[in-house]
């Protein structure tokens, strides 16, 4: 095989690669076009920002979970864990009077701690990820209630707290800081997954854990690291959710984990591990967010909305699969 053919081929491969990226978003674009025609309000800047805002919390959870799922694991504790992190932000800032920055970092690290405990349960004690994080889901849901005394905690002493989500980045346009944070996290996590050793090992572990371990990689430690790392996203999501409501709500969260995992899987990441991407997760999150918003804006009766969302997800994933096979 001569060098020129190799080069020509890799050029073709590259071109095809970029085309694929675009095609992956095809369903998203179709849905987008559909609603633009169906409702004159859909394309209003305020509505588009609203879609991104609505996607922020679940989207950030999905970003972190992408890493976990790529290792072949799963994290069911992200929804209630996020609620607990929000409550902890309230405890640090309102009950304990920490300064704003300390409380926020504390809450984020608390998310990391939840992930760390998950990682230890899975890696050291060898529990199946489903069980370990299911247990954590129940524990965090309960602790959020216990710690908050089943009452919302308001950020009385740190009124600025609500700016974390809501501060407008573009004066006049109401482009909230939270959405900016979401976008930054997309880029950061895409870099980490694609270009750093963390991402490489996540893929290796998910692809063949035993072979990775026999290659001298300390799989246990890396799994703990990855769960903890994903936990930081849970903490960030908790802070943003609390900031958005200017209060830490001790309930809810249950069901969010399925939404986040769904976004990841719709984006083409395999629950078997070893395959996935951040771009996919972002697209998956946006498909769900755009669909939900579009159905609301077009005032489809709510009982029909979940039927439509379900069907569109099935079709979108099916088309995506056809595309991959074809390519």
């Amino acid at each position, binding site marked *: 095989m001569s060098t020129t053919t190799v080069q020509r081929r890799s050029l073709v491969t590259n071109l095809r690669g970029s085309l694929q990226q675009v095609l992956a978003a095809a369903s998203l674009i179709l849905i987008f076009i559909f609603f633009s025609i169906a409702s004159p309000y859909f394309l209003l800047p305020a509505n588009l920002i609203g879609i991104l805002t*609505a996607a922020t919390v679940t989207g950030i959870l999905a970003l972190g979970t992408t890493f976990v799922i790529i290792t072949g694991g799963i994290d069911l504790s992200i929804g209630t864990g996020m609620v607990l992190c929000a409550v902890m932000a309230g405890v640090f800032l309102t009950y304990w009077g920490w300064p704003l920055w300390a409380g926020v970092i504390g809450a984020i690290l608390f998310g990391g701690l939840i992930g760390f405990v998950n990682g230890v349960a899975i890696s050291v004690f060898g529990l199946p990820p489903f069980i370990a994080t299911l247990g954590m889901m129940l524990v965090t849901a309960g602790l959020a*209630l216990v710690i908050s005394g089943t009452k919302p905690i308001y950020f009385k002493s740190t009124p600025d707290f609500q700016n974390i989500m809501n501060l407008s980045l573009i004066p006049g346009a109401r482009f909230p800081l939270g959405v900016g944070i979401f976008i930054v996290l997309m880029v950061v996590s895409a870099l980490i997954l694609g270009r750093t050793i963390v991402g490489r090992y996540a893929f290796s572990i998910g692809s063949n854990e035993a072979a990775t371990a026999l290659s001298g990689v300390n799989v246990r430690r890396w799994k703990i690291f990855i769960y903890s790392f994903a936990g930081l996203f849970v903490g960030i999501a908790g802070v943003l959710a609390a900031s958005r409501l200017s209060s830490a709500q001790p309930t809810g969260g249950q069901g969010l984990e399925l939404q986040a995992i769904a976004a990841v899987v719709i984006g083409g990441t395999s629950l078997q591990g070893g395959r996935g991407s951040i771009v996919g997760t972002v697209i998956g999150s946006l498909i769900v967010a755009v669909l939900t*918003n579009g159905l609301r804006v077009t005032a489809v009766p709510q009982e029909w909305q979940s039927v439509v969302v379900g069907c569109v997800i099935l079709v979108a994933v099916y088309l995506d699969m056809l595309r991959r096979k074809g390519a």
Partner: protein
Amino acid sequence: APAGSGSGDGASAAKPYIALISKGFKHQFWQAVKQGAEQAAAEFNVTVTFEGAEEEGNVDQQIQLLQTTLDKHPDALGFAAIDSQAAGPLMDQAKQDGIPVIAFDSGVDSDVPVTTASTDNLAAAAEAAKHMADLIGHEGKIALVIHDQTSITGVQRRDGFVDYMKKNEPNITIVDIQYSGDPLVATDLAKAIITANPDLKGLYGSNEGAAIGIVHAVQELGITGKLTVVGFDSGKDQIDAINSGLMAGAITQNPVGIGYETVKAAVAIINGKTVAKTIDTGFFWYDKTNITDPKIAAVLYQ
């Protein structure tokens, strides 16, 4: 009055035991009901337990709670049914076992309960509608965010509101009704409604979560003052919103009173007294003007 021991059946030695099964327990509202029940328990020297479905509106879970509780043979049972027909067989069982039942919060569709301590949700929602109509000048488009699509309170707080408008306000149109009691979801949902209806004049939220969601939607869209928001129940967020003018006003029930009256009636029945068939625990409209009124302040929870 110190409670007479040895009443009811079973060999319970000391204090009478009154079990309360509510629709939920996590929500602020239920915590207030629980607080009222505990107040009464202390006052009448009885033991009270308070439990609710993990997810409000989960009938099956509530029936399970009810079953477990009946198996413990309490001296009296307070019950806020999510679906009163669904509880039919267990109500019969309570009757057979001689456990008196006091319905609270909403009626139980059965002849078993001795009395019912509740808010008239239809009337309360109509009251909210009346204020909404007054506030927007009896014309224009409005929309509703209802906390639950199928529960009795959700349905009544929707229908009471809608029926009032239909009957009395020909110039007001309801353009959309969406459902969620989760504040984050309600926020996004209210934003979508507002976006799709630029000429919307009012929004009604049928419980604390729905109302807070609307408030945050208005805040995030920066249209404070352009939209009349009417809420339901209390909680710090709603009270703040009313004080700051973000929300025009809200209906409050008397949750502490509901809990208190339920336990009080149970004690009376255990002691062999007769009680009235219904105990109306009342509701109030509150806004900026009367929020500090002691009578209102007493029924609000933060």
